[in-house]
């Protein structure tokens, strides 16, 4: 085994990551960013593999960056979003908040301490992991994005912690039950506190298995969509022939972007009544309250759903 495990503080772990990155990526101009990205151990919301999102040869890492560009495109009225039609109101919000709906740990490091950029919409919370040596505690600093929220007029209630997958160890049944209770208790109050957890299954046409996402940790359609893009990108990359050659980051990333902006896929959901709807038609809170599960389907299959919405999508391309 070529991994040296001499360093045994938390940073030591990142050395393992470093070696892994070294073995996977011959020359990567984003090396610095990758190191920092892999130092962070917290999972991205909705990510089932909290720590290794950069594992896919940095393809996902760059996808993150690429996806951000994708959103900017949207703001600038560029190529259509692959996911859904966003109603007029929230588009305006996008512009205001610099559009970056990406919820990404790595962004914290990469954006030159511009922690609050790109994470505008909604009461999105951010954590900044402070790496420490062995004897010091590893603290999760919570930065509440109050300033970013104010333009939305959204509540700046105590922001929930950034969630690590599966922590604290509470069963889904309990989380979902309590989420319903909280909703009932606090509906009149400050709106969703996000203190529960709502796992819904997400399937994608052509993908071999489905994923579960926790809707509670997103605050907007943007957050959700970017997380889903990351989660399912490996399938589309696979389909479109980028053969595990992670060094060619640019290639796989741009292929995916083409794919997504070509509106090949739409995001749909099944609501409480059993109807399949396009994601994005109703206000976010209503969506969370009624979404039972989601499906990423090919645009061609989604035609029956909401013809005008589809029209909108296509027109944006």
């Amino acid at each position, binding site marked *: 085994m070529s*991994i040296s495990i001499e360093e045994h503080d938390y940073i*030591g772990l990142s050395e393992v990551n470093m070696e892994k990155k070294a073995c996977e990526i011959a020359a990567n101009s984003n090396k610095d960013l990758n190191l920092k990205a892999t130092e962070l151990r917290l999972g991205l919301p909705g990510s089932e593999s909290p720590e290794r999102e950069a594992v896919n040869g940095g393809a996902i890492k760059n996808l993150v960056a690429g996806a951000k560009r994708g959103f900017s495109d949207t703001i600038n009225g560029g190529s259509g979003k692959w996911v859904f039609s966003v109603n007029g109101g929230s588009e305006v919000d996008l512009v205001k908040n610099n559009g970056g709906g990406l919820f990404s740990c790595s962004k914290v490091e990469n954006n030159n301490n511009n922690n609050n950029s790109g994470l505008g919409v909604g009461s999105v919370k951010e954590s900044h992991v402070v790496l420490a040596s062995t004897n010091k505690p590893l603290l999760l600093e919570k930065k509440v994005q109050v300033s970013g929220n104010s333009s939305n007029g959204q509540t700046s209630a105590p922001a929930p912690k950034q969630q690590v997958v599966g922590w604290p160890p*509470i069963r889904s049944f309990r989380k979902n039950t309590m989420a319903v209770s909280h909703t009932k208790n606090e509906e009149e109050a400050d709106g969703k506190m996000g203190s529960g957890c709502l796992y819904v299954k997400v399937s994608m046409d052509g993908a071999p298995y489905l994923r579960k996402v926790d809707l509670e940790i997103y605050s907007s359609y943007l957050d959700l969509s970017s997380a889903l893009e990351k989660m399912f990108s490996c399938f589309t990359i696979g389909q479109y022939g980028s053969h595990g050659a992670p060094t060619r980051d640019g290639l796989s990333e741009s292929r995916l972007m083409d794919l997504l902006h070509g509106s090949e896929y739409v995001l749909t959901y099944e609501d409480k009544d059993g109807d399949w709807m396009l994601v994005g038609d109703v206000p976010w809170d209503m969506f969370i309250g009624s979404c039972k599960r989601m499906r990423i389907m090919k645009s061609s299959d989604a035609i029956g759903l909401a013809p005008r919405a589809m029209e909108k999508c296509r027109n944006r391309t």
Partner: protein
Amino acid sequence: MVNSFPEEVLEHVFSFITLDKDRNAVSLVCKSWYEIERWCRRRIFVGNCYAVSPGIVIRRFPEVRSVELKGKPHFADFNLVPEGWGGYACSWITEMSRAYPWLEEIRLKRMVVTDESLELISTCFKNFKVLVLSSCEGFSTDGLTDIAANCRNLRKLDLRESEVMDLSGHWLSHFPNTCTSLESLNIACLGSEVSFSALERLVARSPNLKTLRLNRAVPLEKLSTLLRQAPQLVQLGTGAYSSGIRSDVYLGLSKAFSGCKALKGLSGFWDVDPSYLPAFYSVCSRLTSLNLSYATIRSPDITKVIGRCPNLQRLWVMDHVEDSGLNAVAFSCKDLRELRVFPSDPFVADANVTLTERGLVSVSEGCPKLQSVLYFCRQMSNSALITIARNRPNLICFRLCIIEPRAPDYLTLEPLDVGFGAIVEHCKELRRLSLSGLLTDRVFEYIGRHAKRLEMLSIAFAGNSDLGLHHVLSGCDGLRKLEIRDCPFGDKALLANVAKLETMRSLWMSSCAVSFGACKFLSRKMPMLNVEVIDENGTLDSRLDSCPVEKLYIYRTVAGPRSDMPAYIRTMDQCRVNTIS
């Protein structure tokens, strides 16, 4: 001398031996005992459904009446195991339907069960009596319809915390009028409303009904009706526990509860309206089990209830109980054996409840029989842990979850090594331990040295190096299940303790530092282990040996690699030839 006993005599003797461990020991004495024993074993427990195949079990034990299987790893409860992992009950049920026509009981935990399987169960086992589906998924209320309609002698239907595709509540109406055998019904996990009149009639014609756990959809005003039909109930789970302000409902409920002289356990209490709590005061003095862990009631109300329950042995609450409520427990509940405190707002940084380590210390002082603890809190100290350990050396299960990962002793800012060390040192019979907070390799040194009876250990965000894992693997003689997440444990400890892995049921490691190469090596060296690597990014084929695995699940098996793995899981022996696609 032994051989001169006729088989029937030995069989009769063996019938008094019920523990699996003992049965296994009996079967090792000699060949004839092995043969006799295997023909008269009636209960099978398979802790890991992939450790053995249905065929092997059926071949050895041809006359089984009760089967219990467990599927997914424990961490599946916390969404660490991806969808499609496995744990399919189908093959087991199909083979058993052919081999065990007289099967009476099936208990499944964390497995995927289909409606087809439920239909099969309901039609193939003529004397089917008990179905327990704990944290299972994959079936719908249609499957339940078959169970209700076809199982003539059904005694127990328990769906605890399963994820059921809830198409409607009509299934309950399919219990035939001739079905009077029901003893236990738990539908608490179901969302949709069942026909109340069907439920009432079912309860009314089931004189042996002892356990009834309703779902949230059963309204409070109907509860008294059910209680009047079933005053013999021993365990009751209410539905929603609020109903506006209605004195007639309250009075009816109060009267109905006072008629339930046998009631020992209560649960449910969703959406609690505190003004209805006194309705069950009349049963409190007899209660041995109280589950308020879904009840968002605040401290003064909880304290009032607890104060009336001197015979409580098991208490599950939320952190609304606060330290003051736990003081009341310590004062009143001298018979307490098990305490579980769940967090009401686990994802919010600052607690708005005053539940600290003091509550637990208090209970450890006041409750001499306390043996099992599950405690979520936001702060802990070494001194508190040491006190708890000294107070309660009879602890068997200690699961502490400090909500913030890597939180240190809040008083000294030191790691909690010494505190947990005291727990394992004083509690010599400790069988289950879950760690949290800031921990270095030292705590594992203590665990390896002292925790000789430990069977299950859960570790998260702890340790500094492989030495930590090595201490555990080399020191904990009784270890059966080890689950680890987000710890800097790599190859060295695993490879230094390969033989240990075969003495354990399973090992789960996720977000650690074990390499692909080590997994392959382990797999080659230990053919009796399945070394399964989980990688959801789908690039299993192109990984180099030095790359760390995402998630790793190692378990001993006599059934070889399993054939139902999704694409993102690979048993390492399949990776001998590393092809780049």
